[in-house]
């Protein structure tokens, strides 16, 4: 059992939890993730290690389905049944020169830890964070602190630059020599944004988010195609060379349980309602 120390909402549908998990906190590096299972009936879901402090780990997640909705109801003092990790390979941080860390939506959760690591390695780090609108934007202050420069973009212009993170990235790489780029967000955003760096052949990493079960290489649920080869994202990744990733396949496989997920969330909401309004929240 792992105790929730702090829990709160960061933006529309985006929440954070600090959970006590020393075995993860003490060894986690930028780019790694953990797997949680809320209770005996829960599904194992992967979430990025977004920050570490002593024995605590922070996870930031968007409430999209049953598990993340349920997770969003946890409060300080509650428990998460299982927390396993740190999983996956850490980000390949080197002394590259100038790095850009691009985050989209809940993917911004992974950015500060990478930005800090890249900066600690001596890089000049530029951050770009983007969201649908100001209401969905997270970690702006933290990113401002972690990066040498930060650009903010929203699709509707409600905050920062009016447009996509990809548009900002394009301007940045036009303006100066960039040596390495991380792009983390929804699959479609990573696909589109990584096209920006392809023509210049800039080293670009994306963090892939296929459906996982164990997160340790024993099921193959997370398999992705990279450079024409099958890789297990949980052990060979989750970060891969963006320009070699088959994003269409990733998106196709993410939809494997579309109907089941929908049914599960509906059932969850129905039950939450039956327990009285906010039964699961109060």
């Amino acid at each position: 059992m792992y105790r929730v120390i702090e829990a709160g909402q960061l933006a529309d549908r985006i929440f954070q939890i600090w959970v006590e998990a020393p075995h993860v906190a003490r060894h986690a590096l930028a780019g790694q993730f953990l797997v949680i299972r809320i209770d005996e009936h829960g599904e194992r879901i992967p979430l990025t290690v977004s920050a570490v402090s002593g024995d605590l780990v922070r996870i930031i997640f968007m409430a999209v389905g049953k598990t993340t909705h349920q997770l969003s109801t946890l409060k300080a003092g509650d428990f998460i049944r299982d927390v396993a990790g740190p999983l996956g390979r850490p980000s390949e941080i080197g002394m590259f020169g100038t790095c850009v860390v691009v985050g989209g939506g809940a993917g911004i959760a992974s950015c500060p830890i990478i930005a800090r690591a890249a900066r600690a390695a001596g890089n000049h780090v530029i951050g770009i964070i983007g969201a649908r609108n100001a209401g969905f934007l997270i970690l702006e202050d933290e990113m401002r602190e972690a990066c040498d420069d930060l650009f903010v973009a929203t699709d509707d212009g409600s905050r920062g630059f009016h447009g996509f993170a990809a548009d900002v990235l394009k301007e940045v790489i036009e303006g100066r020599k960039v040596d390495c780029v991380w792009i983390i967000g929804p699959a479609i955003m990573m696909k589109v944004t990584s096209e920006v760096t392809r023509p210049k052949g800039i080293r670009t990493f994306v963090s892939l988010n296929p459906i996982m079960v164990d997160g340790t290489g024993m099921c193959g649920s997370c398999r992705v195609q990279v450079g024409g080869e099958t890789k297990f994202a949980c052990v060979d990744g989750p970060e891969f060379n963006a320009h070699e990733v088959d994003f269409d396949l990733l998106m196709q496989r993410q939809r494997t349980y579309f109907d089941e997920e929908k049914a599960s969330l509906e059932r969850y909401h129905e039950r939450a309602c039956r327990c009285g309004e906010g039964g699961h929240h109060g």
Partner: protein
Amino acid sequence: MSARAGAGKAVTMGERPARERVRDFSEVDCGLSAEEAVAEAERCLQCKKPSCIKGCPVEIDIPLFIARIAERDFLGAARIIKEANLLPAVCGRVCPQEVQCEGACILGGKERPVRIGDLERFVADREREQGLVIPPVAEPTGKRVAVVGSGPAGLTAAAELARAGHNVTVFESLHEPGGVLMYGIPSFRLPKDVVQAEIDQLRGMGVEILTNHLAGASIPVADLHAYDAVFIGTGAGLPFFMNIPGEQLNGVYSANEFLTRVNLMHADRFPEYDTPVRHAGRVVVVGGGNVAMDAARVARRLGARVTLVYRRREEDLPARRAEVIRAQQEGVEFELCANPVRILGSHFVTGVECVRMEMCSLDDSGRPEPSPLKGSNFTIDADMVIQAIGQGPNPLLIRKIEGITYGRKGNILVDEEGRSSLEKVFAAGDVATGAATVILAMGGAKKAARAIDRMLREDQRDH
């Protein structure tokens, strides 16, 4: 069904009818009644030089425990078994007895071997009904041993070392201990409460089991080396894929994924449990081993029509004969001498294209070598494909242990007693042998534990 067998005649365990059992995940075998067990025990000749023991990798004193059953001292029988084997309810159910103890029983030549496995199971079940007795442990030695993995190998090593008085910590990456016993072998062959009860004994013996701990990550290799000894029992959990076109389609599973979703995560009870599994009308399982049989039988229980595709003939199926028969009884269809060449579909699987195989010359193992017959391609409709074509050791931890030597297939190289190329690091079970059996993993682990114990005691004397 439980009619008393006449003295001297072998009894068979009761089996639930296929039509009934295929609708649920409850056990197929009903086990022996006390009368049946006593009658079967009386068949044992109490050989002076019992050959059966040689067939048991954990060296249970078989005639002795059987004699106790004949005397109706069932708990006494349990005590004897547990001196050698802490997982008798598991072994009694899943050991391939026909090639182990029973295969070596002297009665096998004349009539039928004593049903040692069924008797072991009977005794273990009896003891469990009354509450398992925790085996005694020796005075603490002050030595600390790290055991990585909680499958049969890790559990056995932990039990032996705890018995000897060492302080044992088990690291398990999944949320439940048990390894394949929990996530692989389905509950209709091995109920999960049976496994859990046997594992709980270990906790009673003072063994600490840390789940959610991935060795090499949650516990770095350097921390492992800080223990007085390390036992690695990480199994062979890395699934192989066929590498044919269409394998990335939604609905293509490794047997590991499919079985884990159902056995460990209870996807058969979705949405009561949150983990889903595809509900398919037609399933193709590829492979012919125990894993393939299990996958096929689980798929049947989820309501699918199931075809098992295997590239050799029926007599070449590597699965236990009894499991093949049960799969057939349960309505699994067999497409033998056939091999998939392509999985069809656009986003989701719609079928499997296979080719007929012709048996030609013999291969290294003396089995006929299958080769594809040109132009014999045919299609099986399917909305799910499960690949059960084998698995190897997971490289995750092994690659991080500097200086440890491993074979071409990624298996840790060890000597007879489980010693690796590194001092103080031992390994046994599937990670050393490649995918094998529960009892071979346990036998290997027991030997390694004894060697570790000897090493630690010499250590103690030297200091």
